[in-house]
C-alpha cells in the first residue's frame, strides 16, 4: 500500500476553483513547490507538459494553475484564473510546451516547471496523482539534482559546516517519522540532506529546524 494520502482533507477537499483537482488544484501545488524552491522574484517560467497534461492542459486551466502556484497563490484564491496575466504584468515571460513523448517519470499527469531570473534557475518535476495531491519526483537547483521518492512533505537541509545528518535526524525523529533519507552533493561538492516525512510539520517545528541548519527548504 502506498501512503500518499495522509489526511482526510486530501480526500474531502481541497476547497478549490474548478474544474479539475488533478489538473488544476494539483497543478497549483506543483507550482507552489517551484515557488518554495525558488524563493525569489522570477523573470521566466517554462512548463513542459507530458501525456494527459499535454493533451488537456488548456481545457483544465492547468496553465494558470501552475503559474498561480509559482506566484504563491492558494488553490481557492480568486486570482487563480488570472494568474498568467498577473505574472506577465509583473514582467515574466511564460512558455508552455506540449511534449509528445512519454513522461520522463512514467506518470500521465507530469509537469516539469523551470523558473529562472538573472541569478538562478530551478527545475521541479511534479506529478499530480489525483484529488489535488501531488508527488515531487525531481528537483534541480544550485548544482543539486535531488530525486525524492515522491510523497510530500519533503525537507531539504543544507547543513552548517561540519554538521552531520545524524543531528538533523534526531531533531526530525522527535517530530515525526522519516520515511526515506538521502544525502546528495552538488557540483561544488557541498552536501545536502533530503528527508521524506510521514506528516506535515508545524510552523514552530519548521522554525526550530531552520535555526539549526544553514538553509532549509520545505515542500
Amino acid at each position, binding site marked *: *500500500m*502506498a*501512503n*500518499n*494520502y*495522509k*489526511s*482526510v*482533507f*486530501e*480526500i*474531502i*477537499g*481541497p*476547497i*478549490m*476553483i*474548478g*474544474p*479539475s*483537482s*488533478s489538473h*488544476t*488544484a494539483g497543478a497549483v501545488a506543483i507550482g507552489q513547490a517551484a515557488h518554495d524552491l525558488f524563493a525569489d522574484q522570477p523573470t521566466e517560467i517554462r512548463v513542459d507538459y507530458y*501525456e*494527459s497534461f499535454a*493533451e*488537456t492542459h*488548456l*481545457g*483544465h*486551466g492547468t496553465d494558470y494553475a501552475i503559474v498561480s502556484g509559482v506566484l504563491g497563490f492558494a488553490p*481557492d484564491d480568486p486570482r487563480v*484564473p488570472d494568474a*498568467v496575466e498577473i505574472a506577465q504584468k509583473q514582467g515574466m515571460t*511564460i*512558455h*508552455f*510546451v*506540449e511534449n*509528445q513523448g512519454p513522461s520522463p517519470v512514467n*506518470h*500521465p*499527469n507530469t509537469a516539469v516547471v523551470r523558473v529562472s531570473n538573472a541569478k538562478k534557475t530551478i527545475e521541479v518535476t511534479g506529478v*499530480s*496523482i*489525483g*484529488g*489535488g*495531491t501531488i508527488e515531487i519526483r525531481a528537483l534541480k537547483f544550485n548544482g543539486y539534482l535531488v530525486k525524492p521518492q515522491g510523497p510530500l512533505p519533503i525537507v531539504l537541509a543544507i547543513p552548517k559546516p561540519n554538521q552531520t545528518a545524524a543531528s538533523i535526524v534526531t531533531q526530525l525523529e522527535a517530530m515525526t517519522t522519516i520515511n526515506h533519507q538521502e544525502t546528495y552533493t552538488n557540483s561544488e561538492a557541498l552536501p545536502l540532506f533530503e528527508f521524506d516525512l510521514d*506528516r*506535515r510539520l*508545524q510552523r514552530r517545528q519548521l522554525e526550530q529546524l531552520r535555526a539549526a541548519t544553514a538553509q532549509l527548504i520545505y515542500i
Partner: protein
Amino acid sequence: MYKSIAELVATAETQHQPISELIIQQEIESSQMSREVIWAMMAKNLEVMRAAVKRGAEGEGVHSTTGLTGGEAVKLRKYRAAGHTLSGDAMVEAIQNAIATNEVNAAMGVVCATPTAGSTGTLPGVLFILEKRLHLTEDQMVRFLFTASAFGMIVANNAMIAGAVGGCQAEVGSAAAMGAAAAVEVAGGTPEQSAEAFAIAMSNLLGLVCDPVAGLVELPCVKRNAIGATDALIAADMALAGCSNKIPADDVIGAMKSIGEEMPRSLRETGIGGLAGTPTGQAMKQRIFGDAFVTEDNPE
C-alpha cells in the same frame, strides 16, 4: 493508518465505535491538531458543498465559458416542481444536487473536491437529500463526510482516484462507493453494511472510462455524477436491506486498480477516445480550441 476496509470494519466493531469516530481519532493523531479544529475544517467543506448545490440550481443556474454545460440543474428543479418524476422526487433531487455542483465546477466556481473535482457532485448529491429524508443535524452531516473520507483514503492509497491513472471508475466510482458507505452509517446501519454498500456501489461502476470531450471536465463528467449519486443511494438501500456484494470491498478495490492499469491511455483523461473521439466530440474540441490545441510550443 487503516490499510484495508476489512481492518476499518473490524476495528469499528471491536471498539463499538462508528467509522467516522475512528477516522477523526486518526486525523487528530496524525495531524496533531485538536478535534475542534479538524471538525471546523470539515464543517467548512460542508458549507462549500451546500453553497455550490444552491448556486447551481437557483435563478438561471451557471454556465461554463465553453457553453458545453450549465443550466440543467435548473431544468431538473423545474421538472421536479411539476411533480411527475419517474424515479421519485428524492432521486431526482439527488441528481439535481449532483449536477448543480458539477456545473459550478465546470464554470470555474468554488467547490470542495470529493475526492476529486471531476467527481465533486456525487457526495453532495447523496448528502443533501439524506438531510431532508433523515432530518440530519449538521453534526451528522459532518460525520457523513468523515466516514466517506475514511473509505476514500483506503481507495486512494491502495488503488487510485485520478481519471488519468484509472479512468472515471477511480473518480465517480470511488465517490459513489464512499457516499454509499457514509449513507449507511448515517442511516444507522452497521460498519459491515457500510462495507457492503461500498462494495456494491464500486462494483456497479467498474470499468467506467474517463473520456471527456476536448479534455474538459464537462461532457460527460457532469452527468456521470448523477449516476454516482444514485448508484450510492441504491447501493446503500441494498446493503441496509441485508443484500451482500459477495465479493468483499477490498477485493473490489483491487479489481478497480487492475482494470485501471489495463485501461488504454486514450480512455484515461486524454480527451482522445470514447465520447471525446466521436465526430461530435471532435467538432466541439475544434470549435473551442481551434488550432491552439495542436500547437506544440505555445508561447502564450
